[in-house]
């Protein structure tokens, strides 16, 4: 397989190769005894990615296409089924439990749901200090100082230390989640749809905050969203996912200006624009197929307006198309 995308610097901070993640649904020992077939969901299916230090990689795709699963597998919150994740030269997939714990100081995650991602029974201080306590980094005064410092960095008042999550609005909660991720001073942060549960005006606040933190702390983001406009604004490069695989990747502007994969094109055309106009709408037929029973060949062929007979049988691979972009589509070969 050809390298996914040309990374800006020689050694990327994060490098993902052939990552695959399968879940077996219904497959207890009894099922096996009864000889029931193991039904598997290939939530992530052979993904290659790399993120350079200081860069933001945007990951976009429809609901259920495996974005979160990919993120969790990278952080080893799920054990990936196959593939390799290298972070700053260390093979993450090969780490033992202790080394993994150590690595977690450098890789953090911000979750989508500001309501579910905070333990409702813990005060803000307890929530933000948890990483410090887990890693034995600071106690008592020192811990509190670090918590206050982080809270202020994300725009929370230190007077709110002893409040509980339910006393905050969605945007404020999301700031708490960000503070928790930042309190360990990580290098790399996965943002799993950090704004999609928020109202537009609050969403803007959080995007603003994340951009500021990135500038000030030199962070590297993997930024997941299903909103192309958001991704367009925050990311340097982007990767488009469809049904478990990356179908297109490249520098954000390049891809948005000239999407190569029919899915990316459809996605782009479907976004309603305040300013009106935009590309003529490409109507896709049908829904996202079930990952339990993915289509053969090109996963997108069932909905693709440009599908050819070949697409049914042969699965296209991601191939570079110059200008730093790559796409997985048979059409791009002929082009």
């Amino acid at each position, binding site marked *: 397989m050809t390298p996914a995308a040309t990374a800006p610097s020689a050694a990327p901070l994060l490098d993902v190769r052939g990552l695959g993640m399968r879940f077996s649904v219904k497959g207890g020992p009894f099922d096996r005894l009864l000889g029931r077939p193991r039904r598997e969901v290939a939530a992530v299916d052979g993904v290659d990615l790399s993120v350079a230090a200081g860069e933001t990689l945007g990951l976009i795709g429809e609901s259920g296409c495996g974005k979160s699963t990919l993120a969790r597998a990278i952080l080893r*919150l799920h054990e990936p089924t196959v593939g390799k994740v290298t972070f700053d030269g260390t093979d993450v997939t090969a780490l033992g439990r202790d080394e993994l714990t150590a690595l*977690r100081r450098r890789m953090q995650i911000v979750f989508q749901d500001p309501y579910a991602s905070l333990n409702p*029974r813990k005060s803000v201080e307890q929530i933000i200090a948890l990483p410090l306590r887990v890693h034995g980094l600071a106690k008592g005064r020192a811990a509190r100082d670090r918590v206050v410092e982080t809270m202020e960095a994300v725009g929370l008042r230190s007077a709110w230390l002893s409040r509980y999550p339910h*006393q905050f609005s969605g945007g404020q909660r999301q700031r708490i989640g960000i503070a928790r991720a930042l309190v360990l001073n990580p290098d790399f942060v996965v943002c799993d749809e950090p704004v999609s549960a928020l109202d537009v005006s609050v969403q803007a606040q959080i995007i603003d905050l994340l951009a500021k933190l990135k500038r000030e702390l030199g962070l590297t983001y993997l930024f997941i969203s299903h909103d192309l406009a958001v991704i367009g604004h925050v990311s340097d490069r982007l990767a488009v996912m469809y049904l478990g695989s990356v179908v297109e990747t490249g520098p954000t502007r390049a891809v948005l200006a000239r999407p190569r994969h029919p899915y990316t094109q459809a996605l782009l055309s479907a976004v309603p624009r305040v300013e009106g106009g935009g590309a003529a709408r490409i109507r896709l037929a049908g829904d996202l197929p079930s990952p339990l029973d993915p289509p053969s060949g090109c996963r997108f062929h069932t909905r693709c307006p440009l599908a050819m007979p070949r697409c049914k049988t042969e699965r296209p691979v991601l191939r570079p198309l110059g200008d730093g972009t790559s796409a997985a589509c048979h059409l791009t070969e002929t082009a």
Partner: protein
Amino acid sequence: MSAIPASPALRAAGPASPGRLGLQTFLANRMSLASAVIVLLILAAAVAAPLVAPHDPNETDLLRRLQPPAWLEGGEWSYLFGCDALGRDILSRIVFGARVSIFIGVAVVALATAIGIALGLAAGYLRGWTDIAISRVVDVLLGFPYLIFAIALMAMMGPGLQNIVLALVYKEWVIPCRVVRGETLAMRQTEFVEAARAVGATRGRIMFGEILPNILSPVIVVATIRMAHVIILEASLSFLGLGVQPPTASWGSMVADGRAFILDAWWVSTFPGLAILVLVLAINVASQGLRDAFDPKIND
């Protein structure tokens, strides 16, 4: 930096934990509060039984056999609720009997809940074979009729307060265990648990530090309801002749002993029966209040 004005709700409540909010709701519910007070009064009477009871509960006087309550003909005011078949003061026995009922209720539920929490958390969080093993045991015990199980165990271990507690605990833990497992299953998927894993927290810390505090309120509600159940179960065991040892009074055995005289001397079994009813009712009402206060689903 955003200048977010403190909203009125925030100003009013101050730093209040969800538990404290629930408690406030609970206190606001007059009926549950009254019930909680009744439970506490019964508890106090039980603790201070020697001071409260007018007579020695075990002092027999065959001449007072089946003496009626004070307000009936042949009754005496110093024996308010009358006397049992051995001429013992029923009121005093009820006061002392509260000790047994409450002790068994509390001990069984406390032990069962502790076991249930540990196993339920393990099954629900660790899943895999741990879950399968624990769940099978739970299934087996659920399929076993409760009273038969307890009776057989009592026959096996012999009588005595301690054995009653054990006989009931051996099956009772299944109930909190199922509740905890179910809640844990729901919790382990939540993002805050995942967040704890993402920062490297150990399984123990996640189970007991992150999940447990969140499932505690349903567990407490179940525990109080079960306590009421256990008190009736002990009474049923006593009724079937497997209760506490004489002369110790237990409400269940008082009802059981008194039922032989139900046609002639209704008071012997009626008062302890009422005592069970009142205590169990009070616990149930209080727990209903707890549920309303802590379960946001039922609560609007």
